[in-house]
């Protein structure tokens, strides 16, 4: 599995029988976390239908990098599923020492304007390993839908 030619950060959906999985890559752990969040957001709704009107800060903590990624994604998911905040973009503010803080840019969910896609239950730990090939980090995250 190689990242797409010419792109140093990104995500793409991959096939999984029961659920949805996203392959994510980035030139740093920060980019990897950002792209994974965008991958998740794009499963839930069309980020292009969202206006970046306000900012919401989200953070997570965990002992190991893989656990931190899952915890972070579940916080991003909660912003939508629990607080009904639709995101257009994501930026990592700080990452390290078992803690991540990021900013979601978007607006309150509006059923009439935002194009929803899937109801994602959670990000899973299943088969989750962050790999580094050359200077590119890569991971595959399985989501339960």
């Amino acid at each position: 599995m190689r990242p797409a030619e010419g792109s140093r950060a990104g995500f793409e959906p991959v096939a999984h029988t029961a659920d949805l999985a996203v392959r994510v890559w980035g030139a740093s752990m920060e980019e990897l976390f950002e792209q994974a969040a965008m991958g998740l957001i794009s499963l839930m709704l069309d980020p292009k239908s969202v206006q970046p009107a306000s900012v919401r800060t989200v953070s997570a903590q965990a002992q190991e990098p893989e656990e931190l990624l899952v915890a972070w994604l579940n916080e991003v998911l909660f912003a939508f599923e629990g607080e009904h905040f639709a995101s257009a973009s994501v930026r990592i503010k700080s990452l390290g020492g078992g803690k991540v803080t990021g900013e979601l840019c978007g607006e309150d969910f509006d059923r009439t304007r935002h194009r929803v896609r899937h109801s994602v239950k959670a990000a899973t730990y299943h088969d989750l390993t962050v790999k580094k090939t050359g200077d590119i980090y890569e991971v595959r995250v399985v989501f339960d839908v």
Partner: protein
Amino acid sequence: MEQRAYGMIRVGPFEWEVPQTGQMNVPVRIYADERLLETIERDNAVQQAINVAYLPGIVRASYAMPDTHWGYGFPIGGVAAFDAEKGGIVSPGGIGFDINCGVRLIRTGLAEKQVRSRIQELVNALFEQVPCGVGSSKAIASPSDQELRRICVEGAAWAVRNGFGRADDLERTEALGTMPGADPDAITKKAFMRGRPQVGTLGSGNHFLEVDVVREVFDEQAAEAFGISKGLVAVQIHCGSRGFGHQTCTDYLQTMQDALRKYRIEVPDKQLACAPLESPEGKRYLAAMACAANYAWANRQTIFALATRAFESVFGGDRDSLGMQQVYDVCHNIAKFEEHAVGDERRILCVHRKGATRAFPPGHPETPAPYRAVGQPVLIPGDMGRASYLLVGTQKAMATTWGSTCHGAGRLMSRHSAIRQAKGRSIKKELQERGVFVRYEAHETLAEEMPEAYKDVEAVVSVMHEAGITRKVARLEPIGVIKG
């Protein structure tokens, strides 16, 4: 004889075993015919069932039902029992994110002819009454914190107390619709926030509300006890604990990662994270899981009452004059303490069923009184184009699979390939040509859930029938569906 993967051997006409090797604590037992086994072998389900066999305190075998398929951590269609005295564990991933996802079946006294002529009107009324789709909410007034805590403890009884359904529905619900041991203090604020607006909503994905016709009866005695006969209309509700359960599983999977380190438990996949049944972490998860199970029962009980209103608005009269009576409500994502025979001993085990259904025999104290002579009803939803099945539990299930059987058809196609295959087609129109009127919230969901994305449920229930685990009672075919 051809060599099978994982050294699998045939141990019965419909039973396969992966012998215990290496760090496995028990063997793997798979129920399947040769054709289903091929599809099972094609994905990762067998390896996942082997991984479950590594877990501490597992008793006798890691079981996979014929509808088993690749999940995450535990396979879907997996059954595993753990003994607390042998270091047994509880694993949130062995129950799933949708805690107490389950099925409710309601019989009506209406004949197919009466309903078919007004099916569009009925499906539209159901669609109006029962919110569905991504983020569906506000079927009823959002409960206060205090009410939510009551839902956690009371389950379906909360709904009945608030005017949704009747007390006799509870007698025909697994665990009487109330799981004991629930502690709302074990639930996070996040779970309450996600769950608050969603009581009485169907959600999305593979969840549905269906109007069925009893097309064929295989077991007259059991059918009669269940109030089912050929040509009658029935209603099926498939959903779970919504965001409340999803968040609860998420919260405790994180706790369990720390528990793995604390109790030095090694697992081949972090999604199998667990804690000893006797540990504070294990007990707290079970108390939270019971809250989510109760939320799901309150949810299905409320949806049933909303569906009843739709029937009353279309056909007139009331629930009694329409002959609407709950047949049963089962969960297929749950862990429960149950007494089972292990060798010559009676043991209390924590039975995990992830995409598997309880199937208790005649005479069991938990089989509802009106069904005690025939056994517990088992509800197996199929895809929305073909059929669903009503089965009944047996002594053999009790003796061999901890009183468990399959839970549905099981996916055959990924969601992506289903959407690809549906391009340029109208699934709604195709279903209509097959006599099924469908209303849906999202076009993509309908494509992902199209009939051919699933295995044929008939093959799945036939394996369990032939193996003597559950007997077929009736086949139901859909005529109207609402989907998220």
